[in-house]
């Protein structure tokens, strides 16, 4: 029940190729765990939630920690890039500020020096702070497995709390983001029990851009963290924003729809009622913020 002092024993293997990782995963099955920053794995090992025989450090694989941006092609972030690397990267800040903002909201500075975006995704925790941003930006995940590489839209990756679409022997190597529509804007808002440093009780990522195909002239994506078994797109709220003229009334209705989409449960961190209400508050605030950015850009 209580966490142990120190870590239980295991064998650490520093992998140098993707093939080696696949082989180790196949060989050891559940007995192997991949590690990048370790900020989640080591905690869970102390708590006795997992007890791997081998821990495979994959952050030194070629390209695992790289961040590459190419005009037109978009952004590729290695799965083992740390939160601080992402938050500080000039191209991420310039072209994907929503992602930088989300990465920068995780825990503390020293944790962000270790925690990775890929690890954050693979835990498939509903309260992972970078997941809403990745879904809002319609990121794609690069997976490597026994049959080589495949790419999957991020939204298809999360099957349930702690459950992902990773096949046996498969692991995440990178996240890819398309070039974002011009004039787009984003905002990640998070409510914790302290103003920074906490897990999110509610996380809301909002991404908006001009879109001539909608009747409102804009398209918004709204993604909610911590308020459902998986991180959630608030599609009905997005629909409201696509069909009705931007403004406070529309935003309030969209925020209401986002709240209705949330299905949190009561736990020690907060009640369902409160978390739902906070979805509305944060969504409304986020929409106003993004709209201000969009309107400002238009002028």
């Amino acid at each position, binding site marked *: *029940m*209580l966490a142990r*002092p120190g870590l239980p024993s295991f064998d650490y293997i520093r992998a140098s190729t993707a093939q080696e990782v696949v082989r180790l995963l196949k060989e050891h099955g559940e007995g192997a765990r991949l590690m990048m920053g370790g900020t989640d794995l080591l905690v869970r090992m102390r708590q006795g939630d997992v007890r791997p025989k081998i821990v495979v450090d994959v952050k030194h694989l070629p390209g695992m920690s790289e961040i590459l941006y190419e005009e037109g092609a978009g952004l590729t972030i290695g799965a083992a890039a740390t939160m601080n690397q992402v938050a500080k990267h000039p191209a991420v800040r310039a072209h994907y500020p929503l992602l930088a903002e989300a990465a920068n909201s995780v825990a503390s500075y020293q944790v962000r020096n270790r925690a990775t975006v890929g690890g954050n995704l693979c835990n498939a925790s509903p309260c992972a702070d970078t997941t809403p941003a990745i879904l809002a930006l319609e990121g794609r995940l690069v997976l490597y497995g026994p049959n080589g590489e495949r790419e999957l839209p991020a939204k298809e990756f999360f099957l349930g709390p702690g459950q992902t679409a990773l096949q046996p022997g498969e692991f995440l190597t990178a996240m890819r983001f398309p070039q974002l529509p011009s004039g787009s804007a984003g905002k990640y808002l998070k409510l914790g029990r302290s*103003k920074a440093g906490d897990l999110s009780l509610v996380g809301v990522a909002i991404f908006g851009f001009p879109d001539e195909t909608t009747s409102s002239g804009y398209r918004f994506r709204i993604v909610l963290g911590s308020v459902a078994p998986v991180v959630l797109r608030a599609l009905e709220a997005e629909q409201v924003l696509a069909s009705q003229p931007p403004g406070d009334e529309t935003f309030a209705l969209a925020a209401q729809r986002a709240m209705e989409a949330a299905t949190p449960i009561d736990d*020690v961190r907060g009640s369902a*009622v409160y978390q739902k209400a906070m979805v509305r508050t944060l969504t409304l605030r986020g929409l106003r913020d993004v709209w201000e950015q969009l309107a400002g850009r238009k002028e």
Partner: protein
Amino acid sequence: MAKHTLDPVGKSVSRVDMYDKVTGAARYADDLQFGPGLYYGRLVRSGYAHALIKRIDASKALQVPGVKAVVTGKDTPIRIGLYLKDRFIFAMDRVRYVGDAVAGVIATSEETAEEAAQLIEVEYEELPAVFDPEEAVQPDAPLIHPDLGDYEVVNFILPEPGTNISEHFKLRKGDPEAAWPKCAAIVEGTFRLPQIQHVPIEPHVAVALWEPSGQVTLWTSSQSPFAQRDLIAQSLGIPHGNLRVVSPYVGGGVGGKAGVSMEACAVVMARAVKGHPVKLRMTREEEFIGTTVRQSLVAHTRIGCDAEGNLLAMETRYYFGGGASNEYGVNIARAAGYSCTGPYYIPNVKGDSYCVYTNLPIGSAMRGFGMPEIHWGIEQIMDQLAEKMGIDPAEFRRRNCVKTGDTILTGMKMPQIDLVACIDKVTKAIDWGKEEKPSAAHKKRGKGIAIMWKAPAMPPNPGSSAIVRFNEDATVNVEIGAQELGQGAFTVAAQVAAQALGVPYEWVRISAPIDTKYSPYEWQTVASRITWSMGNAVKAAAEDARKQILDVVAEHWGEDVENLDIKDGQVISYQSEREQPLEKMVIYGLPSEDFEGWKGGPIIGHGKFMPTYVTNLDPETGQGTRAVVHYTVGAQAVDLEVDTETGEVEMLKIASAYDVGKAINPDLVMTQIEGGAVQGASSAFEALKFDEKGQPLNADLVDYRIMTTVDAPREIHGDIVETPLEDGPWGARGVGEHVMVQTAPAIANAIHDALGIRFNDLPLSAEKIFLALQEQQKD
């Protein structure tokens, strides 16, 4: 250039421990090195809140390579305790809370001990449990200590055997029944506080060595090396002279390292592997449930005032949820009983304060010792009364607060204090009465005030002692038994010694770590009593040394000792204007003028202090001549902002003022005031949470949040008031705990000012505030 500070009392000299602490050189208990013979211990803890132990099978654990021994309650069928011996070191036949220590494994590494501990099988028979103190006093409640009547108890604590009540303190003054009809306004409320934890950044750690000769040494992070020696020696039958407790720097105490908790387990485990030191340290998770916590409280309080706004009557019942053992906590309920009015003069009082067993972690001392708990309700009722009477809350408090010479609730005359001055300071600092604009349309701003009192809560006669030893170069070693927890006790001891001796502050060294084998006796570093009590002892020791020096020099010079003084490390004569440096003479003495022999010798001064004037109180009325040694009083005012869309509270400013008698080191007083304000503010948002079976839900720092840099107030203001205390060194009294006593109700009063909503139960949380705002909008 070396600093040379003369007459340091009243000056903000730098801390004696600062260099070690900013360079990592300061050693704490876990930093001590014991070599390859060191063993490690881990505890097996109960998973049930209340159960009988049917069987313990350690056979698998004992087969693990590296395991040296397993101990259980059967090895130590004895109880331990400060005021009431109700605590088994290891559970005997029953466990009383989730986390109760059932067995201990000793092995060659912490890891092996942990692995083996997981292999110990314990069979339980679950019993009904009770968690709420008011439920626990009902006649049909499960009995947690059926043998309470057999337990040894001090004469001023009154348990009620056959119930879960470990202490019932009664206060009867005047005639409340007759007074109620005369009241123009009466406010009544029930107030609840959950258990909270001290969260020192250093978890508990103890290393024990039981030598084959029978000599026992305990290295520990402790506020109470001497009390630990006394209690462990008594319960384990060790001669006091054979038990040595060594305690280096303490990485935060807050009361959690007072008395004995897990240290006794380490000693029992060491007895099983004689000759090998055994280290037992708590993980952070264990720190929350396996050491001690602040007691919970349910308070039913009614207070009334007359048409002029003068308080007339009070009736209150306090039910402290003491957890599974109340060995220390009984005196919290007692302190809450004899101080039950808070810092107010009320002529008619009926108070009942109970300490009650519950099946939760052990409640014990925490900074404030019952006072934060009772002020939470009292200070909100005072605001409500003031509002009913149309009187400004600060003015209402000025009118009704205790003043020097008042006959307070126990019949004792209030020693010199100036609480009105404290109120004046904080109202000025916070621009009381001036309405401030919130920073945004969705925010609301409010100000609140609260005042407090607290007496050192302790037995009537806790002693302090000190030794002052000179070295050849006239540097001075001061030996004390008081502990440095961060509050600055060592620095204050050095200042007091330097001042009383007449030597520069920089000449004084504190003999540390505190070691019961070499350090002179100190009851415990608790109760905000050290500056006052230890201060008096150090001053007496320094004066003793000073007298020895002056006698030698007076004889040597053939002068009257009355004409001599020590200034700047030299004996001077006001008569002959001669000078004699202390260097060398404080060890070697002085030669006769004709070199025919010597006078003097090594100078060692001794000093002690013990209050001798505290009287017992009548068990039916709580009346007596002198209930306590003195009270320290203070006021706080807060300015805050509430986000009405989330319920989040932002602390903008906390202003505090305390009457410390005399600030020996003003900046250190300020560091207490500032740190206490933040800890007090943090406490308003903290709670240990349990499920319906008593299982902890947030026993870690992920879900038990304490204030961080981003939560701390934008501004903290402090003022020092100095109304000298008759028997304090230079008039000083303590302030270490007082600084967080009334912060939570000051915040609640400010939130009420901002929102018009009252919260009777802690913790406050953004969620609770937001949901209350929603309710308010419905109405």
